[in-house]
Protein backbone atom coordinates (compact mmCIF):
# COMPACT_ATOMS: atom_id res chain seq x y z
CA UNK A 1 0.00 0.00 0.00
CA UNK A 2 1.17 3.51 -0.74
CA UNK A 3 1.55 6.09 1.99
CA UNK A 4 -1.73 7.22 3.53
CA UNK A 5 -0.90 10.82 2.62
CA UNK A 6 -0.63 9.88 -1.06
CA UNK A 7 -4.33 9.09 -1.22
CA UNK A 8 -6.84 11.47 -2.67
CA UNK A 9 -10.12 12.11 -0.88
CA UNK A 10 -12.13 9.43 -2.70
CA UNK A 11 -9.39 6.82 -2.19
CA UNK A 12 -9.10 7.70 1.51
CA UNK A 13 -12.87 7.50 1.88
CA UNK A 14 -12.98 4.09 0.24
CA UNK A 15 -10.03 2.85 2.30
CA UNK A 16 -11.76 3.90 5.52
CA UNK A 17 -15.01 2.28 4.43
CA UNK A 18 -13.26 -1.01 3.67
CA UNK A 19 -11.37 -0.81 6.99
CA UNK A 20 -7.99 -0.89 5.21
CA UNK A 21 -6.92 1.70 7.81
CA UNK A 22 -8.56 3.67 10.59
CA UNK A 23 -9.48 7.35 10.76
CA UNK A 24 -6.91 7.84 13.52
CA UNK A 25 -4.19 6.28 11.35
CA UNK A 26 -5.12 8.47 8.41
CA UNK A 27 -5.28 11.61 10.54
CA UNK A 28 -2.03 10.80 12.36
CA UNK A 29 -0.22 10.44 9.03
CA UNK A 30 -1.50 13.83 7.91
CA UNK A 31 -0.67 15.52 11.21
CA UNK A 32 2.92 14.33 10.90
CA UNK A 33 3.14 15.61 7.35
CA UNK A 34 1.66 18.99 8.36
CA UNK A 35 4.19 19.22 11.20
CA UNK A 36 7.04 18.92 8.69
CA UNK A 37 5.65 21.55 6.31
CA UNK A 38 6.54 24.84 8.00
CA UNK A 39 8.70 26.00 5.09
CA UNK A 40 5.52 26.23 3.02
CA UNK A 41 3.74 28.40 5.63
CA UNK A 42 0.41 26.94 4.48
CA UNK A 43 -1.06 26.44 7.95
CA UNK A 44 -1.42 29.47 10.21
CA UNK A 45 -2.88 27.34 13.00
CA UNK A 46 -2.49 23.60 13.49
CA UNK A 47 -5.08 21.73 15.53
CA UNK A 48 -3.57 18.24 15.96
CA UNK A 49 -5.33 17.47 19.27
CA UNK A 50 -8.69 18.49 17.91
CA UNK A 51 -7.97 16.42 14.79
CA UNK A 52 -7.17 13.30 16.84
CA UNK A 53 -10.33 13.75 18.94
CA UNK A 54 -12.42 14.06 15.79
CA UNK A 55 -10.70 11.06 14.18
CA UNK A 56 -11.34 8.91 17.26
CA UNK A 57 -15.00 9.92 17.16
CA UNK A 58 -15.03 8.92 13.47
CA UNK A 59 -13.63 5.49 14.28
CA UNK A 60 -16.46 5.00 16.77
CA UNK A 61 -18.93 5.92 14.04
CA UNK A 62 -17.36 3.44 11.62
CA UNK A 63 -17.69 0.75 14.31
CA UNK A 64 -21.32 1.78 14.95
CA UNK A 65 -22.20 1.86 11.26
CA UNK A 66 -23.18 5.55 11.50
CA UNK A 67 -20.35 7.03 9.42
CA UNK A 68 -21.11 10.17 7.41
CA UNK A 69 -20.12 10.83 3.78
CA UNK A 70 -16.82 12.47 4.81
CA UNK A 71 -16.25 10.43 7.95
CA UNK A 72 -12.66 10.51 9.16
CA UNK A 73 -11.29 12.58 6.27
CA UNK A 74 -8.70 15.13 7.44
CA UNK A 75 -8.99 18.54 5.76
CA UNK A 76 -7.63 22.07 6.07
CA UNK A 77 -9.88 25.11 6.39
CA UNK A 78 -9.10 28.54 4.96
CA UNK A 79 -8.75 30.99 7.84
CA UNK A 80 -11.70 32.95 6.49
CA UNK A 81 -14.23 30.42 7.83
CA UNK A 82 -15.25 30.99 11.45
CA UNK A 83 -14.56 27.91 13.54
CA UNK A 84 -16.12 27.83 16.97
CA UNK A 85 -13.54 28.10 19.73
CA UNK A 86 -10.66 28.07 17.22
CA UNK A 87 -8.81 31.27 16.31
CA UNK A 88 -9.95 32.82 13.04
CA UNK A 89 -8.05 35.79 11.64
CA UNK A 90 -8.69 36.21 7.89
CA UNK A 91 -4.87 36.58 8.00
CA UNK A 92 -5.31 40.13 9.25
CA UNK A 93 -3.74 41.73 12.29
CA UNK A 94 -6.97 43.59 12.95
CA UNK A 95 -8.76 40.43 14.06
CA UNK A 96 -5.98 39.75 16.54
CA UNK A 97 -6.69 36.55 18.43
CA UNK A 98 -10.39 36.45 17.53
CA UNK A 99 -12.05 33.25 18.76
CA UNK A 100 -15.44 32.84 17.04
CA UNK A 101 -18.31 31.92 19.36
CA UNK A 102 -20.01 30.22 16.39
CA UNK A 103 -19.27 27.92 13.45
CA UNK A 104 -19.68 28.84 9.78
CA UNK A 105 -22.44 26.89 8.02
CA UNK A 106 -20.03 25.42 5.46
CA UNK A 107 -17.64 24.05 8.08
CA UNK A 108 -20.53 22.85 10.25
CA UNK A 109 -21.81 20.90 7.23
CA UNK A 110 -18.37 19.31 6.85
CA UNK A 111 -18.13 18.32 10.54
CA UNK A 112 -21.69 16.98 10.49
CA UNK A 113 -20.64 14.76 7.58
CA UNK A 114 -17.63 13.50 9.55
CA UNK A 115 -14.66 15.53 8.29
CA UNK A 116 -11.65 16.11 10.56
CA UNK A 117 -10.03 19.54 11.06
CA UNK A 118 -6.23 19.60 10.65
CA UNK A 119 -5.95 23.37 11.06
CA UNK A 120 -6.52 26.79 9.55
CA UNK A 121 -4.95 27.77 6.24
CA UNK A 122 -3.14 30.94 5.24
CA UNK A 123 -4.70 33.37 2.75
CA UNK A 124 -4.30 36.92 1.49
CA UNK A 125 -5.53 39.38 4.13
CA UNK A 126 -9.35 39.39 3.96
CA UNK A 127 -8.95 37.38 0.73
CA UNK A 128 -7.61 40.48 -1.04
CA UNK A 129 -4.79 39.36 -3.27
CA UNK A 130 -3.71 36.92 -5.94
CA UNK A 131 -0.45 35.64 -4.48
CA UNK A 132 -1.00 35.12 -0.74
CA UNK A 133 1.59 37.84 -0.13
CA UNK A 134 -0.77 40.25 1.66
CA UNK A 135 -1.24 37.83 4.59
CA UNK A 136 -0.23 39.09 8.03
CA UNK A 137 1.38 35.66 8.51
CA UNK A 138 3.65 36.20 5.51
CA UNK A 139 3.59 34.55 2.09
CA UNK A 140 2.90 30.90 1.40
CA UNK A 141 5.43 29.11 -0.78
CA UNK A 142 4.18 27.09 -3.70
CA UNK A 143 5.25 23.43 -3.37
CA UNK A 144 6.41 23.84 -6.98
CA UNK A 145 9.64 25.84 -7.22
CA UNK A 146 11.10 27.79 -10.13
CA UNK A 147 13.70 26.43 -12.51
CA UNK A 148 16.50 27.77 -10.29
CA UNK A 149 14.97 26.67 -7.02
CA UNK A 150 13.40 30.08 -6.32
CA UNK A 151 10.22 30.26 -4.28
CA UNK A 152 7.02 30.85 -6.21
CA UNK A 153 3.64 32.08 -5.04
CA UNK A 154 0.83 29.50 -4.70
CA UNK A 155 -1.72 31.99 -6.06
CA UNK A 156 -4.30 33.70 -3.94
CA UNK A 157 -6.24 34.45 -2.07
CA UNK A 158 -6.63 30.75 -1.14
CA UNK A 159 -2.87 30.15 -1.33
CA UNK A 160 -2.68 28.14 1.88
CA UNK A 161 -5.46 25.89 0.61
CA UNK A 162 -3.88 25.28 -2.80
CA UNK A 163 -0.40 24.72 -1.37
CA UNK A 164 -1.75 22.34 1.28
CA UNK A 165 -3.60 20.19 -1.25
CA UNK A 166 -0.66 20.15 -3.69
CA UNK A 167 1.70 19.16 -0.86
CA UNK A 168 -0.77 16.56 0.49
CA UNK A 169 -1.23 18.35 3.83
CA UNK A 170 -4.84 17.20 3.99
CA UNK A 171 -7.04 15.26 1.59
CA UNK A 172 -8.82 18.48 0.60
CA UNK A 173 -9.25 22.10 1.69
CA UNK A 174 -11.99 24.68 1.85
CA UNK A 175 -11.46 27.96 0.03
CA UNK A 176 -13.34 31.05 -1.09
CA UNK A 177 -13.48 32.84 -4.43
CA UNK A 178 -14.41 36.50 -4.96
CA UNK A 179 -12.58 37.16 -8.25
CA UNK A 180 -10.67 33.95 -8.84
CA UNK A 181 -9.35 33.07 -5.38
CA UNK A 182 -10.12 29.34 -5.70
CA UNK A 183 -9.41 28.78 -9.39
CA UNK A 184 -6.20 30.81 -9.84
CA UNK A 185 -4.39 29.17 -6.88
CA UNK A 186 -5.59 25.75 -8.07
CA UNK A 187 -4.11 26.45 -11.51
CA UNK A 188 -0.80 27.55 -9.94
CA UNK A 189 -0.44 24.34 -7.89
CA UNK A 190 -1.72 21.56 -10.17
CA UNK A 191 -4.90 21.12 -8.13
CA UNK A 192 -8.62 21.25 -8.85
CA UNK A 193 -10.55 24.35 -7.75
CA UNK A 194 -14.32 24.72 -7.87
CA UNK A 195 -16.16 27.99 -7.38
CA UNK A 196 -19.85 27.08 -7.14
CA UNK A 197 -22.77 29.17 -8.33
CA UNK A 198 -23.42 32.22 -6.14
CA UNK A 199 -25.94 31.13 -3.52
CA UNK A 200 -24.96 27.43 -3.56
CA UNK A 201 -22.84 27.50 -0.38
CA UNK A 202 -23.88 29.60 2.58
CA UNK A 203 -21.81 32.69 3.32
CA UNK A 204 -22.88 32.62 6.97
CA UNK A 205 -19.81 32.66 9.21
CA UNK A 206 -17.40 33.32 6.35
CA UNK A 207 -15.49 36.57 6.86
CA UNK A 208 -16.99 38.91 4.26
CA UNK A 209 -14.93 40.60 1.55
CA UNK A 210 -17.42 41.49 -1.23
CA UNK A 211 -20.76 39.97 -0.38
CA UNK A 212 -22.29 39.90 -3.88
CA UNK A 213 -19.24 38.05 -5.23
CA UNK A 214 -17.95 35.84 -2.38
CA UNK A 215 -18.57 32.12 -2.69
CA UNK A 216 -17.07 29.16 -0.84
CA UNK A 217 -15.83 26.05 -2.61
CA UNK A 218 -13.25 23.27 -2.40
CA UNK A 219 -9.67 22.84 -3.58
CA UNK A 220 -8.93 19.15 -4.13
CA UNK A 221 -6.64 16.71 -5.92
CA UNK A 222 -9.28 15.49 -8.36
CA UNK A 223 -12.58 16.50 -9.92
CA UNK A 224 -14.28 13.58 -8.14
CA UNK A 225 -12.99 14.91 -4.81
CA UNK A 226 -14.40 18.35 -5.65
CA UNK A 227 -17.79 16.76 -6.36
CA UNK A 228 -17.72 14.97 -3.00
CA UNK A 229 -16.66 18.08 -1.08
CA UNK A 230 -19.28 20.28 -2.73
CA UNK A 231 -21.98 17.76 -1.84
CA UNK A 232 -21.22 18.42 1.82
CA UNK A 233 -20.37 22.13 1.67
CA UNK A 234 -23.52 23.14 -0.25
CA UNK A 235 -26.81 23.68 1.55
CA UNK A 236 -29.71 26.03 1.85
CA UNK A 237 -29.26 28.31 4.85
CA UNK A 238 -31.89 30.75 6.04
CA UNK A 239 -29.16 32.73 7.82
CA UNK A 240 -27.76 33.86 4.45
CA UNK A 241 -30.34 35.96 2.60
CA UNK A 242 -28.74 35.11 -0.76
CA UNK A 243 -28.65 31.37 -0.10
CA UNK A 244 -30.73 29.62 -2.75
CA UNK A 245 -33.37 27.13 -1.66
CA UNK A 246 -32.56 24.23 -3.90
CA UNK A 247 -31.83 20.56 -3.31
CA UNK A 248 -28.18 19.49 -3.28
CA UNK A 249 -27.79 16.84 -5.99
CA UNK A 250 -25.45 13.86 -5.81
CA UNK A 251 -22.58 15.51 -7.67
CA UNK A 252 -20.45 12.39 -7.72
CA UNK A 253 -23.21 10.53 -9.56
CA UNK A 254 -23.00 13.15 -12.30
CA UNK A 255 -19.50 11.95 -13.25
CA UNK A 256 -20.58 9.61 -16.02
CA UNK A 257 -17.71 10.38 -18.40
CA UNK A 258 -20.22 10.93 -21.18
CA UNK A 259 -20.18 14.35 -22.84
CA UNK A 260 -21.34 13.28 -26.30
CA UNK A 261 -23.18 16.12 -27.99
CA UNK A 262 -22.29 18.64 -25.28
CA UNK A 263 -21.69 22.07 -26.75
CA UNK A 264 -18.47 23.72 -25.53
CA UNK A 265 -18.20 27.44 -26.17
CA UNK A 266 -14.84 29.10 -26.89
CA UNK A 267 -15.04 32.82 -26.14
CA UNK A 268 -12.86 34.71 -28.60
CA UNK A 269 -12.34 37.65 -26.22
CA UNK A 270 -10.22 35.43 -23.95
CA UNK A 271 -7.39 35.47 -26.50
CA UNK A 272 -5.68 38.36 -24.76
CA UNK A 273 -2.59 40.26 -25.87
CA UNK A 274 0.75 38.85 -24.76
CA UNK A 275 -0.74 35.51 -23.74
CA UNK A 276 2.16 33.04 -23.53
CA UNK A 277 2.12 30.67 -26.48
CA UNK A 278 2.13 27.63 -24.19
CA UNK A 279 -1.17 28.76 -22.64
CA UNK A 280 -2.62 29.31 -26.09
CA UNK A 281 -1.40 25.82 -27.06
CA UNK A 282 -2.85 24.26 -23.91
CA UNK A 283 -6.20 25.87 -24.60
CA UNK A 284 -6.17 24.38 -28.11
CA UNK A 285 -5.20 21.03 -26.62
CA UNK A 286 -8.21 21.25 -24.28
CA UNK A 287 -10.48 21.98 -27.24
CA UNK A 288 -9.10 18.92 -29.05
CA UNK A 289 -9.54 16.69 -25.97
CA UNK A 290 -13.17 17.63 -25.55
CA UNK A 291 -13.82 17.25 -29.27
CA UNK A 292 -12.33 13.75 -29.20
CA UNK A 293 -14.62 12.94 -26.28
CA UNK A 294 -17.62 13.76 -28.43
CA UNK A 295 -18.29 17.39 -27.58
CA UNK A 296 -19.21 19.95 -30.18
CA UNK A 297 -17.02 23.08 -30.23
CA UNK A 298 -18.80 26.40 -30.75
CA UNK A 299 -17.26 29.85 -31.15
CA UNK A 300 -18.97 32.37 -28.90
CA UNK A 301 -18.50 36.01 -28.00
CA UNK A 302 -18.53 37.67 -24.58
CA UNK A 303 -18.10 41.24 -25.85
CA UNK A 304 -17.83 43.02 -22.48
CA UNK A 305 -15.04 40.80 -21.11
CA UNK A 306 -12.49 43.62 -21.28
CA UNK A 307 -14.57 45.65 -18.81
CA UNK A 308 -14.86 42.89 -16.21
CA UNK A 309 -11.72 43.76 -14.23
CA UNK A 310 -12.44 47.51 -14.16
CA UNK A 311 -16.00 46.81 -12.99
CA UNK A 312 -14.71 44.35 -10.40
CA UNK A 313 -12.22 46.88 -9.05
CA UNK A 314 -15.08 49.24 -8.28
CA UNK A 315 -17.65 46.74 -7.02
CA UNK A 316 -15.39 44.59 -4.83
CA UNK A 317 -13.66 47.54 -3.07
CA UNK A 318 -17.02 49.31 -2.63
CA UNK A 319 -18.51 46.27 -0.90
CA UNK A 320 -15.29 45.74 1.04
CA UNK A 321 -15.25 49.32 2.33
CA UNK A 322 -18.72 48.73 3.69
CA UNK A 323 -18.09 45.22 5.05
CA UNK A 324 -14.81 46.14 6.70
CA UNK A 325 -16.35 49.10 8.53
CA UNK A 326 -17.07 46.62 11.33
CA UNK A 327 -13.39 46.41 12.26
CA UNK A 328 -13.37 49.39 14.56
CA UNK A 329 -11.78 48.03 17.71
CA UNK A 330 -15.05 47.96 19.64
CA UNK A 331 -16.43 44.43 19.61
CA UNK A 332 -13.43 42.28 18.73
CA UNK A 333 -9.89 42.47 17.45
CA UNK A 334 -6.85 44.47 18.38
CA UNK A 335 -7.74 47.98 19.60
CA UNK A 336 -5.27 50.88 19.47
CA UNK A 337 -5.80 53.69 21.97
CA UNK A 338 -6.85 57.18 20.86
CA UNK A 339 -7.69 60.53 22.43
CA UNK A 340 -11.36 60.10 21.51
CA UNK A 341 -13.46 57.45 19.78
CA UNK A 342 -12.74 58.65 16.23
CA UNK A 343 -9.05 58.69 16.96
CA UNK A 344 -9.34 55.16 18.39
CA UNK A 345 -11.07 53.98 15.19
CA UNK A 346 -8.44 55.58 12.94
CA UNK A 347 -5.52 54.28 14.96
CA UNK A 348 -6.99 50.79 15.19
CA UNK A 349 -7.60 50.59 11.45
CA UNK A 350 -4.23 52.17 10.55
CA UNK A 351 -2.39 49.59 12.63
CA UNK A 352 -4.63 46.60 11.89
CA UNK A 353 -5.06 46.69 8.10
CA UNK A 354 -2.27 45.94 5.64
CA UNK A 355 -1.47 48.09 2.60
CA UNK A 356 -3.60 46.25 0.04
CA UNK A 357 -6.64 46.21 2.31
CA UNK A 358 -6.23 49.93 2.99
CA UNK A 359 -5.92 50.61 -0.74
CA UNK A 360 -9.12 48.74 -1.50
CA UNK A 361 -11.07 50.34 1.34
CA UNK A 362 -9.91 53.74 0.07
CA UNK A 363 -10.89 52.99 -3.55
CA UNK A 364 -14.27 51.72 -2.38
CA UNK A 365 -14.85 54.70 -0.13
CA UNK A 366 -13.99 57.00 -3.02
CA UNK A 367 -16.33 55.18 -5.43
CA UNK A 368 -19.18 55.39 -2.94
CA UNK A 369 -18.60 58.98 -1.88
CA UNK A 370 -20.88 61.87 -2.75
CA UNK A 371 -20.35 63.06 -6.31
CA UNK A 372 -18.71 59.83 -7.53
CA UNK A 373 -21.35 57.24 -6.64
CA UNK A 374 -23.16 57.40 -10.01
CA UNK A 375 -20.02 57.84 -12.10
CA UNK A 376 -18.23 54.85 -10.61
CA UNK A 377 -20.39 52.56 -8.52
CA UNK A 378 -23.66 52.65 -10.48
CA UNK A 379 -21.74 52.59 -13.76
CA UNK A 380 -19.89 49.45 -12.63
CA UNK A 381 -23.17 47.77 -11.66
CA UNK A 382 -24.59 48.54 -15.10
CA UNK A 383 -21.53 47.08 -16.79
CA UNK A 384 -21.89 44.07 -14.52
CA UNK A 385 -25.33 43.45 -15.98
CA UNK A 386 -23.95 43.65 -19.51
CA UNK A 387 -21.30 41.08 -18.57
CA UNK A 388 -23.95 38.76 -17.09
CA UNK A 389 -26.09 39.25 -20.22
CA UNK A 390 -23.12 38.25 -22.40
CA UNK A 391 -23.14 34.85 -20.67
CA UNK A 392 -26.90 34.45 -21.04
CA UNK A 393 -26.53 35.01 -24.78
CA UNK A 394 -23.53 32.69 -25.09
CA UNK A 395 -25.45 29.92 -23.30
CA UNK A 396 -28.08 30.01 -26.02
CA UNK A 397 -25.38 28.50 -28.25
CA UNK A 398 -23.41 26.34 -25.83
CA UNK A 399 -23.59 24.46 -22.51
CA UNK A 400 -20.22 25.25 -20.95
CA UNK A 401 -17.29 27.53 -21.75
CA UNK A 402 -13.65 26.49 -21.93
CA UNK A 403 -10.89 29.03 -21.25
CA UNK A 404 -7.43 29.14 -19.69
CA UNK A 405 -7.62 29.72 -15.91
CA UNK A 406 -4.77 32.21 -15.73
CA UNK A 407 -2.65 34.23 -18.17
CA UNK A 408 0.58 32.77 -16.72
CA UNK A 409 2.01 30.04 -14.51
CA UNK A 410 3.00 30.76 -10.89
CA UNK A 411 5.43 33.65 -10.53
CA UNK A 412 8.22 34.41 -8.07
CA UNK A 413 7.47 35.61 -4.56
CA UNK A 414 7.94 39.40 -4.53
CA UNK A 415 7.53 39.92 -8.30
CA UNK A 416 4.34 42.00 -8.39
CA UNK A 417 4.11 43.18 -4.80
CA UNK A 418 4.90 46.77 -5.75
CA UNK A 419 2.43 46.97 -8.62
CA UNK A 420 -1.19 46.41 -7.59
CA UNK A 421 -2.53 46.73 -11.14
CA UNK A 422 -0.18 44.07 -12.50
CA UNK A 423 -1.35 41.78 -9.69
CA UNK A 424 -5.01 42.42 -10.55
CA UNK A 425 -4.49 41.08 -14.09
CA UNK A 426 -4.14 37.56 -12.65
CA UNK A 427 -7.91 37.41 -12.41
CA UNK A 428 -8.64 38.42 -16.00
CA UNK A 429 -10.14 35.02 -16.94
CA UNK A 430 -11.79 34.18 -13.62
CA UNK A 431 -13.47 37.39 -12.50
CA UNK A 432 -16.28 37.27 -15.06
CA UNK A 433 -17.81 34.17 -13.44
CA UNK A 434 -17.99 36.00 -10.10
CA UNK A 435 -19.62 39.04 -11.64
CA UNK A 436 -22.24 36.86 -13.33
CA UNK A 437 -22.58 34.52 -10.30
CA UNK A 438 -21.72 31.42 -12.39
CA UNK A 439 -19.85 28.27 -11.38
CA UNK A 440 -16.24 27.86 -12.55
CA UNK A 441 -13.88 24.91 -12.32
CA UNK A 442 -10.11 24.87 -12.81
CA UNK A 443 -8.57 21.55 -13.83
CA UNK A 444 -4.79 20.92 -13.99
CA UNK A 445 -4.10 20.32 -17.66
CA UNK A 446 -0.42 20.62 -18.39
CA UNK A 447 3.00 22.07 -17.58
CA UNK A 448 4.87 25.06 -18.90
CA UNK A 449 8.46 24.96 -20.15
CA UNK A 450 9.73 25.21 -16.56
CA UNK A 451 7.64 22.29 -15.37
CA UNK A 452 5.05 24.48 -13.64
CA UNK A 453 1.36 23.53 -13.64
CA UNK A 454 -1.16 25.25 -15.90
CA UNK A 455 -4.93 25.03 -15.58
CA UNK A 456 -7.90 25.11 -17.89
CA UNK A 457 -11.14 26.64 -16.71
CA UNK A 458 -14.69 25.53 -17.41
CA UNK A 459 -17.55 27.95 -16.70
CA UNK A 460 -21.08 26.57 -16.42
CA UNK A 461 -24.62 27.78 -16.28
CA UNK A 462 -26.08 28.86 -12.94
CA UNK A 463 -26.50 25.70 -10.81
CA UNK A 464 -24.92 23.69 -13.62
CA UNK A 465 -22.32 22.13 -11.30
CA UNK A 466 -23.22 18.57 -12.32
CA UNK A 467 -22.54 19.25 -15.97
CA UNK A 468 -19.47 21.29 -15.09
CA UNK A 469 -17.98 18.50 -13.01
CA UNK A 470 -18.83 15.91 -15.68
CA UNK A 471 -16.91 17.85 -18.34
CA UNK A 472 -14.18 18.60 -15.82
CA UNK A 473 -13.60 14.93 -15.19
CA UNK A 474 -13.41 14.20 -18.93
CA UNK A 475 -10.85 16.99 -19.28
CA UNK A 476 -8.92 15.68 -16.28
CA UNK A 477 -8.83 12.15 -17.68
CA UNK A 478 -7.64 13.37 -21.08
CA UNK A 479 -4.95 15.57 -19.54
CA UNK A 480 -3.75 12.80 -17.25
CA UNK A 481 -1.99 15.27 -14.95
CA UNK A 482 0.03 13.19 -12.45
CA UNK A 483 2.93 15.54 -11.73
CA UNK A 484 3.87 16.02 -8.08
CA UNK A 485 6.18 18.73 -6.76
CA UNK A 486 9.63 17.76 -5.52
CA UNK A 487 9.49 17.66 -1.71
CA UNK A 488 12.10 20.33 -0.94
CA UNK A 489 10.17 21.61 2.10
CA UNK A 490 10.46 18.48 4.23
CA UNK A 491 14.22 18.14 3.74
Amino acid at each position, binding site marked *: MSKLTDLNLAQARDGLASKAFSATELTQAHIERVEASDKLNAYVLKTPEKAMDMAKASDVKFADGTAGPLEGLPIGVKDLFCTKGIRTTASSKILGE*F*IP*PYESTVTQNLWTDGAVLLGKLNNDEFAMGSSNETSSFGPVNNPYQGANGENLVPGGSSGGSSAAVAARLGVAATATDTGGSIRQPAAFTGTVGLKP*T*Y*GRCSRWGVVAFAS*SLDQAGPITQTVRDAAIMLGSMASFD*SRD*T*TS*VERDVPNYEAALTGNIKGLRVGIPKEYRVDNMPSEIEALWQQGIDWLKEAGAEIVDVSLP*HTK*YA*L*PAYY*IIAPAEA*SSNLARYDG*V*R*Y*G*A*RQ*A*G*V*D*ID*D*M*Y*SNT*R*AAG*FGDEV*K*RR*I*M*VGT*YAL*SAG*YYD*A*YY*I*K*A*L*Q*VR*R*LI*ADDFTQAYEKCDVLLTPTTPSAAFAVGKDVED*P*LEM*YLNDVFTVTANLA*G*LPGLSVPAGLDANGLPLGLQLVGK*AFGEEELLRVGEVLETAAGFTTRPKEWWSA
Partner: protein
Amino acid sequence: MSVDEKTVRRIATLARIGLSEAEVPALAKELNAIIGFVEQLSEVDTTGVKPFTSPVENKMRRREDVVNDGGYAQDVLANAPEKDDEYFAVPKVVD
Protein backbone atom coordinates in the same frame (compact mmCIF):
# COMPACT_ATOMS: atom_id res chain seq x y z
CA MET B 1 -10.57 62.46 -12.74
CA SER B 2 -7.48 62.42 -10.64
CA VAL B 3 -7.10 61.91 -6.95
CA ASP B 4 -5.07 64.69 -5.33
CA GLU B 5 -3.50 64.57 -1.90
CA LYS B 6 -6.34 66.53 -0.37
CA THR B 7 -8.80 63.93 -1.64
CA VAL B 8 -6.66 61.13 -0.23
CA ARG B 9 -6.83 62.75 3.21
CA ARG B 10 -10.58 63.22 2.89
CA ILE B 11 -11.17 59.58 1.88
CA ALA B 12 -8.94 58.38 4.71
CA THR B 13 -11.02 60.41 7.15
CA LEU B 14 -14.25 58.96 5.74
CA ALA B 15 -12.81 55.46 5.95
CA ARG B 16 -11.40 56.09 9.44
CA ILE B 17 -7.92 55.00 8.44
CA GLY B 18 -5.21 57.03 10.10
CA LEU B 19 -2.54 58.18 7.63
CA SER B 20 0.77 59.83 8.29
CA GLU B 21 1.66 62.75 6.00
CA ALA B 22 4.52 60.65 4.62
CA GLU B 23 2.08 58.00 3.35
CA VAL B 24 -0.13 60.40 1.40
CA PRO B 25 1.88 60.98 -1.82
CA ALA B 26 2.46 57.26 -2.52
CA LEU B 27 -1.17 56.43 -1.82
CA ALA B 28 -2.33 59.23 -4.14
CA LYS B 29 -0.20 57.73 -6.89
CA GLU B 30 -1.56 54.21 -6.34
CA LEU B 31 -5.17 55.34 -6.14
CA ASN B 32 -4.71 57.35 -9.33
CA ALA B 33 -3.41 54.29 -11.14
CA ILE B 34 -6.40 52.23 -10.01
CA ILE B 35 -8.95 54.96 -10.73
CA GLY B 36 -7.28 55.50 -14.12
CA PHE B 37 -7.70 51.80 -14.86
CA VAL B 38 -11.40 51.71 -13.96
CA GLU B 39 -12.04 54.87 -16.01
CA GLN B 40 -12.29 52.54 -19.03
CA LEU B 41 -15.87 51.88 -17.95
CA SER B 42 -16.85 55.28 -19.31
CA GLU B 43 -16.38 53.87 -22.84
CA VAL B 44 -19.35 51.54 -22.33
CA ASP B 45 -22.80 52.75 -23.33
CA THR B 46 -25.01 51.87 -20.37
CA THR B 47 -28.01 53.98 -21.26
CA GLY B 48 -31.11 52.37 -19.82
CA VAL B 49 -29.22 49.42 -18.24
CA LYS B 50 -30.54 48.46 -14.83
CA PRO B 51 -27.77 48.20 -12.22
CA PHE B 52 -26.96 44.60 -11.26
CA THR B 53 -26.88 44.30 -7.48
CA SER B 54 -26.92 40.55 -6.89
CA PRO B 55 -26.74 37.35 -8.93
CA VAL B 56 -29.61 36.02 -6.82
CA GLU B 57 -32.94 37.76 -7.15
CA ASN B 58 -34.34 36.38 -3.91
CA LYS B 59 -37.17 38.13 -2.22
CA MET B 60 -36.29 38.73 1.41
CA ARG B 61 -37.55 35.70 3.28
CA ARG B 62 -39.82 36.24 6.24
CA ARG B 63 -39.96 34.23 9.40
CA GLU B 64 -42.25 34.02 12.36
CA ASP B 65 -41.88 37.05 14.60
CA VAL B 66 -40.61 35.08 17.56
CA VAL B 67 -37.43 35.08 19.61
CA ASN B 68 -35.30 32.29 18.11
CA ASP B 69 -31.81 33.20 19.21
CA GLY B 70 -29.91 35.18 21.80
CA GLY B 71 -29.40 35.26 25.54
CA TYR B 72 -25.65 34.83 25.58
CA ALA B 73 -24.20 38.24 26.21
CA GLN B 74 -20.98 36.81 27.63
CA ASP B 75 -20.28 34.90 24.39
CA VAL B 76 -20.90 38.05 22.38
CA LEU B 77 -18.57 40.02 24.63
CA ALA B 78 -15.89 37.35 24.83
CA ASN B 79 -13.70 38.96 22.16
CA ALA B 80 -14.22 42.57 23.24
CA PRO B 81 -11.02 44.59 23.73
CA GLU B 82 -12.75 46.31 26.67
CA LYS B 83 -16.04 45.54 28.39
CA ASP B 84 -18.01 46.62 31.41
CA ASP B 85 -20.63 44.27 32.80
CA GLU B 86 -22.79 43.39 29.74
CA TYR B 87 -21.56 46.31 27.62
CA PHE B 88 -18.77 47.05 25.16
CA ALA B 89 -16.64 49.85 26.55
CA VAL B 90 -15.31 52.65 24.30
CA PRO B 91 -13.52 55.95 24.88
CA LYS B 92 -15.77 58.79 25.97
CA VAL B 93 -17.99 59.93 23.06
CA VAL B 94 -19.84 62.93 24.59
CA ASP B 95 -18.22 65.40 26.98
